[in-house]
């Protein structure tokens, strides 16, 4: 999608538009060949009017022809039934209306192929219906639409053909009327087990160590992204969180790490309330956090040694000064224990993804956490590092830590988790134990088809 709109350059391969090979190196090229894109995050100037937004970027010369833009907006609303007032200020419009402005913008640039990235993610149900009506009319007028979604119901409702992508590969293209179960199977695929966990018999079962009740939180758009989420994790258990990205998992990780305030609900670790607590309080409750945005959670311009002690600076003081020797020894110790391929003086930013993850892992695990909240622990890592990270997590599980594992990698979840919960639109829509986790059923749950088994 980013490649089609010229935001990312392909390594190889070609793009054809209308039978002709085109070379798209920037959004400008994409627009020139008739490709328009509507992303989840709108690129609108909020204080400007609809008409002004439409001519933005097309304005040639000195004089702004706002009247032409107004006319265009009116024409479009007649032709396609896209109703927006040309003089309305964009910031005052609802999200659904803003999306219509985005579509109008693309149409005004004579776009013949419209790419829509998860267009319904930000819409409420009746806006979705309106969007679909609009799209149908546009398609009837001859527009081509690429509709990107992980919601099976929508895909079946609006699409003529469906291509399934999994891990960057095309699994296949099928008619839009294909059975949901088949689509789900194509999305999820067959799991292949790498590192496996020991079976359930050695599990320490006890009262839950991490308890989350009725947790609700808002995302960047101000909409609820976590809705009344409840679960519990026992010592010696790995609870996996499955779901297509963007269904609240990121925010769950942030809330549990102290980086986002929930609007309601509670998070308790051994009966200590931690909802809305600072990262400091959360760490004091011996919760270890391995975040999905690992680069943003380390100071890349500082050394490995400093990053390894950054969570506990006060432990390395001697008479008000930083004890540099102990910092170094601590770093050397962890570098050896966690097989980090770097020296204590190296800047973290120069390390490979795997070693950056090991720095975080070492920082967290060396404090012997009782609860570990870990998100996408092996995303972007090579096989060796992946295996290492998984082995370490299983070792912690064996040592009695309660682990919450958020991952988009179903193989990983199935290999490591004792139980799985599935997130869809900020809610838990299903829970399965590892023994009877079935990829097809998980796929259905992840795609919002939570049929009771």
């Amino acid at each position, binding site marked *: 999608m980013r490649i089609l709109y010229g935001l990312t350059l392909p390594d190889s391969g070609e793009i054809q538009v209308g039978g002709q090979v085109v070379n798209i190196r920037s959004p400008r090229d994409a627009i020139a060949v008739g490709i328009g894109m509507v992303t989840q995050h709108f690129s609108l100037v909020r204080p400007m009017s609809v008409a002004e937004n439409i001519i933005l970027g097309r304005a040639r010369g000195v004089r702004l022809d706002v009247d032409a833009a107004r006319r265009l907006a009116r024409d479009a609303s007649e032709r396609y039934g896209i109703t927006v007032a040309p003089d309305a200020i964009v910031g005052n419009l609802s999200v659904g209306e803003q999306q219509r402005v985005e579509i109008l913008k693309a149409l005004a640039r004579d776009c013949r192929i419209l790419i829509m990235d998860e267009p319904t993610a930000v819409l409420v149900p009746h806006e979705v219906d309106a969007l679909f009506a609009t799209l149908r009319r546009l398609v009837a007028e001859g527009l081509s639409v690429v509709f990107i979604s992980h919601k099976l119901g929508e895909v079946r409702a609006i699409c003529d053909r469906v291509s399934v992508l999994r891990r960057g590969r095309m699994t296949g293209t099928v008619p839009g009327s294909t059975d949901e179960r088949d689509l789900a199977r194509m999305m999820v695929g067959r799991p292949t087990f790498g590192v496996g966990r020991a079976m359930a018999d050695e599990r320490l079962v006890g009262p839950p160590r991490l308890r989350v009740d009725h947790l609700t939180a808002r995302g960047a758009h101000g909409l609820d992204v976590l809705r009344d989420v409840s679960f519990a994790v026992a010592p010696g258990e790995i609870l996996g969180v499955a779901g297509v990205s963007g269904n609240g998992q990121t925010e769950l990780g942030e809330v549990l790490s102290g980086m986002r305030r929930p609007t309601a609900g509670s998070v308790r670790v051994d009966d200590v309330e931690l909802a809305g607590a600072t990262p400091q309080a959360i760490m004091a409750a011996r919760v270890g956090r391995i975040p999905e945005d690992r680069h943003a959670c380390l100071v890349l311009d500082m050394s490995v040694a400093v990053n390894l002690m950054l969570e506990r600076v006060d432990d390395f003081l001697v008479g008000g000064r930083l004890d540099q020797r102990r910092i*170094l020894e601590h770093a050397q110790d962890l570098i050896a224990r966690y097989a980090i391929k770097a020296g204590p003086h190296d800047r973290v930013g120069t390390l490979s993804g795997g070693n950056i993850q090991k720095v975080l892992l070492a920082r967290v695990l060396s404090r012997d956490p009782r609860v570990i909240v870990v998100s996408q622990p092996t995303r972007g890592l090579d096989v060796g590092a992946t295996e290492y990270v998984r082995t370490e997590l299983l070792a912690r599980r064996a040592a009695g830590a309660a682990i919450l594992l958020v991952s988009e990698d179903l193989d990983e979840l199935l290999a490591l988790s004792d139980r799985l919960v599935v997130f869809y639109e900020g809610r838990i829509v299903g829970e399965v134990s590892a023994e009877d986790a079935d990829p097809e059923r998980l796929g259905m749950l992840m795609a919002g088809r939570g049929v009771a088994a």
Partner: protein
Amino acid sequence: MTRRYDLSRAGIMGATTSGTARVSIMAVLITVGFTTTLFLLAGANPIEAYLQYLVVPLTKQFTLLEVLVASTPILLTGAAVAIAFRAGFWNIGAEGQLLAGAVAAAAIGPLVGDLSPWLAIPLMIAGGALAGAAWVLVPALLRVRLGIDEVVTTLLLNPVALLMVNALLHGPWRDPKTGFPESPRIAASAIYPDLIPKSRLHLGFVVALVVILVAWFVMTRTAAGLRMRAVGLSPHAARFAGMNVERTLLRVALVSGAIAGIAGVGEVAGIQHKLTSGLSSGFGYTGIVVAMLGGLTMPGVLLAGLLLGDLTVGASSASRALNIPSEMGEVVQGVLLLVTVGLLAVRHGRVTRSDPPPDEAEVDLEPAGAGSGEPGPRAPVEPVPI
């Protein structure tokens, strides 16, 4: 005998300076190149001009001491700016904070005649520091609580400070006999003693050196300094690691304002012995040049402060010797600032423009020489999609 772990040199504390040193040297060279043309336009031989600017002041004892006098305020404002920038608090208001400190000194100075200098001078320094911190308090709170850009607010408070000075001088403090807009002289016990008899070099220079030494120690050797730098380099990572980003920023801002305030005290107690409207010739702004040129490190600030002091003294004598406008010195300073900022921007911009695959993206985002840990200007760093 244990091995000496000099980690700051080795880079463990993120304080290597090689990268910034390169930028600073390049900035100086490019500036010389640019200003050569200006000297030619002004009808002077550029080589002679630079000899006059940089070398001649160091050859005589009187002018050498004058260099140190000229360096005193900008060493302090440079340290104030460097500390703030290092933590990501973009304090452009050292000028106003300096004036606030000067006002406090002029208010306290005449009242402490009965005290010994050992009490009077520290009292005045403390008052100036408080006033400087107070002057930055509102912008700091606005930034920390409401996220309002401190570049604008600190900058806008500079003319306000100057207006306050003028209001005082033309109002309550006007000399009742002569009518001159000057505050009452400060008491003899409040005057900074001269370091060398019959020179203008005063205690303020020692104060500046002590402040720089303490600032260097705090920044490189203490937990507070580490937090400060972590917050400056990555507020998100610092918060994630349990640091209170807002509190750190607030403290750094206040310390920065206090140091700038002390610079103002020095000009009152060491040079003018009263408050005048011409007290500061843009020392607060020059402090930004000093801080940037010094790579936001304290040793760098020391060198850059002395260099610009040299330039200031040289500029005034050069204008007489070569018959070029004395404003040339400020032009050279201005070019120096623009070139330094430009070089830092280029260094950041060049590397961020690449478009690496999503996950490993940030690994390559930072410039190769950024081991210095200096954050650089923030504006040009982010490449904008679409």
